[in-house]
C-alpha cells in the first residue's frame, strides 16, 4: 500500500490498535481510542475486555461509540455497572491498560487536557480531566494517542491533568501513586514512542519506530523537547488493506474521525 492511500490519522489508529493486548482489561477513552479499540477487537485482540468509565464492561462493538456512556458502550455487554465500580476496579489493580488522549504531552508522559496558559486566566479552556487522571493514576499501563507537533509535544505541559512519570524516576511512587504503573507508549501521527523506564532509566520519552515516509529528523523537528533517539529505530508497518477496509467501512463509515 503506497503512502498516498491512507491518512496519518488512519495510520495512527492502526498503530495504536496493534498495541491492544488480547485477553486484557482495557479502559477506553473518548475519541480515537475508541476507533483503535474497535479495530483491535476486529483484528488482533478479539478477547479484549473493553471498559468504559460510566459502567460499560465487555461490550461487543457493533457501531462506533460516540459517547463514553452511550448505549454502544454496553451493547450486548457482560456487565452494565456504574462509574464508582469501574474506578474502584482500576484502583484495586484489575485494569491492565488505559488508552487516552490529551492536548499536550511532556517528556515524562504527563498529559494536559485542562487549560492552555494560566489556570485562572486561561488562553484556552479545555474540557478538564474527566476520567483521564484516574486512568493515568490507576491503570497498570497507559497509552496516549496524540497529534504530533511542537505545540503538543512540549518541554513542560501548562497543566498536569493526568500523571505520567511527573518529574522523573520514582516520582509517581513518592507522590502516592500505585507502584509499577505509568505510561508505556505514545502513538502519534508521526511515530511510536515509549519511555526509558527500566530500572536506572530516566523515564523520558524515546523514539521506537517512525511511520512509513516519516524521517527521524521530522519527528525531532516536531517535538518541543529532546527525545531519546536509540541507535536502532524501526518503521511501523503501513495499514493493511484489511485494517483500512474495517476502519473505513465498518468502524467510521460516517467519517467522524478519519
Amino acid at each position: 500500500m503506497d503512502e498516498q492511500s491512507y491518512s496519518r490519522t488512519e495510520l495512527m489508529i492502526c498503530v495504536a490498535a496493534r498495541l491492544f493486548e488480547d485477553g486484557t482489561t482495557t479502559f477506553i477513552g473518548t475519541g480515537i481510542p475508541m476507533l483503535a479499540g474497535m479495530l483491535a477487537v476486529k483484528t488482533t485482540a478479539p478477547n479484549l475486555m473493553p471498559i468504559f468509565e460510566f459502567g460499560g464492561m465487555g461490550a461487543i462493538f457493533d457501531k462506533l461509540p460516540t459517547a463514553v456512556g452511550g448505549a454502544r458502550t454496553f451493547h450486548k455487554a457482560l456487565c452494565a455497572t456504574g462509574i464508582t465500580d469501574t474506578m474502584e476496579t482500576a484502583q484495586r489493580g484489575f485494569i491492565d491498560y488505559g488508552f487516552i488522549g490529551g492536548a499536550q504531552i511532556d517528556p515524562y508522559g504527563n498529559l494536559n487536557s485542562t487549560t492552555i496558559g494560566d489556570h485562572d486566566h486561561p488562553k484556552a479552556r479545555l474540557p478538564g480531566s474527566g476520567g483521564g487522571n484516574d486512568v493515568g493514576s490507576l491503570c497498570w499501563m497507559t497509552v496516549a494517542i496524540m497529534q504530533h507537533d511542537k505545540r503538543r509535544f512540549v518541554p513542560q505541559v501548562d497543566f498536569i491533568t493526568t500523571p505520567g512519570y511527573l518529574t522523573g524516576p520514582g516520582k509517581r511512587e513518592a507522590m502516592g501513586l500505585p507502584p509499577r504503573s505509568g505510561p508505556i507508549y505514545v502513538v502519534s501521527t508521526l511515530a511510536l514512542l515509549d519511555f526509558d523506564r527500566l530500572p536506572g532509566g530516566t523515564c523520558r520519552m524515546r523514539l521506537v519506530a517512525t511511520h512509513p515516509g516519516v524521517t527521524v529528523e521530522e519527528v525531532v523537528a516536531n517535538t518541543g523537547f529532546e527525545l531519546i533517539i536509540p541507535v536502532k529505530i524501526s518503521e511501523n508497518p503501513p495499514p493493511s488493506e484489511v485494517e483500512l477496509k474495517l476502519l473505513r467501512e465498518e468502524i467510521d463509515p460516517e467519517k467522524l474521525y478519519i
Partner: protein
Amino acid sequence: MDVLESGRGELIQPPDLDAFREWNRTQKSRKLIDKLMTEKEAVSRFVFDGCYIGTELYGTVRCPMSLVREVIRQKKKDLRILGQGVLELDLWLAAGLIKKIDLTYIGLEVYGTSAAFRRAVEGGQIETCVEWSNAAITMRLKAAAMGIPFLPIRSMLGTDTLTYSAAKVVEDPFTGMKVCLVPALILDVGLMHVHRADRYGNAQVEGISGFAFEMGRACKRLIISAEEIIPTEEIRQYPDRTMIPYYLVDAVVHAPFGSHPGDMAYVHERDEPGIREWVEASKTAEGARAYLEKYVDNLADHEQYLALVGKERLDRLVAEREKRT
C-alpha cells in the same frame, strides 16, 4: 494525621454531615406521598438562585434535559454546579446561569471542546473552576451518600488537578501510604432522568447506572424525571430494580423523551442531527442565543418541545434504539 498537601481550589459546597442528617430527619417525608408534578412546578419549588445543583447521567446520555430546559425558562441564576457534562451544562453556560463549577469535564465528546464553556471561562463569566477527576467527583458523592465527611482515593496525586482542587493529601495512619482525601459533596438539588418511576418516586434505571446511585443519596432535594410512570405494584414486582427509593425523592415528573437530544438506552437512540444543531449553533454567542430561543424560551413546556421536534423524528429514534434482543 498531618495534611501533607492542600489543593488551592475553593471548597464551593462545604459539607455539613450533621446538618445533612438533621435535614434528612426533618425535611424528607417517610410517607408515600404523591409527588407527580410538571417540570415547571418541580423546578419552581426546588431549584433556587445560587443553589448547588447536579445532573445525572450527562448531556448526551440519559440526561434530564426537559428539567434542564425548564431551569433556563425560569432563569434560575448564580448556579454552582457539579461539572460533569455535555449538552446540559452547555445550555446553562450559554444562558449565563452558572457562577461556580466543580469541574471534571465539560466538552462535546466526539465534537471536541465546548465553545460555550470556553466563552464563559475565557470571558470571565465563571467565578471559579475547581478541578477534579471523575473518580474524585463520584467518590465525593459516595462520601455524602455514606454520611461521612470524606473518602480517600488514589487518583489526582502528584498532579495540577490536585493543586487546583479542594482535595488534601495525607499519610494513611494504618498503612503509611499517601492518599488523596476528597470531601463529601452534598447537593442542594439533583436532577436525574430514569426509565420508570411510580408517583412516590421509587425509580428504576436500565443499562449502566452512571453515578445515579451515589448522587441520588447525596442530595437535599432530588427531582426525578421518568420516561414512564408506573403503578407501585410493578415496582413491588421487581424491587431489585429500584435504584432510588421514594424517600430520597421530592418531585416526580413524567417526561417521555426527557433526555432528547441525548439517548435513553433501550428506549431511543440519540438524535445526531439534533446534537449537531447545538454544536454548530453554540460556536457563536449569537447562535447559542438563537438556539435557546427556538428550543427553550419560545416554548412553554416539554410537550411543546416534543411537538417541535416532531413525531416522525422521535419514532425514528425509537426504531434505532439499542435493543435487548
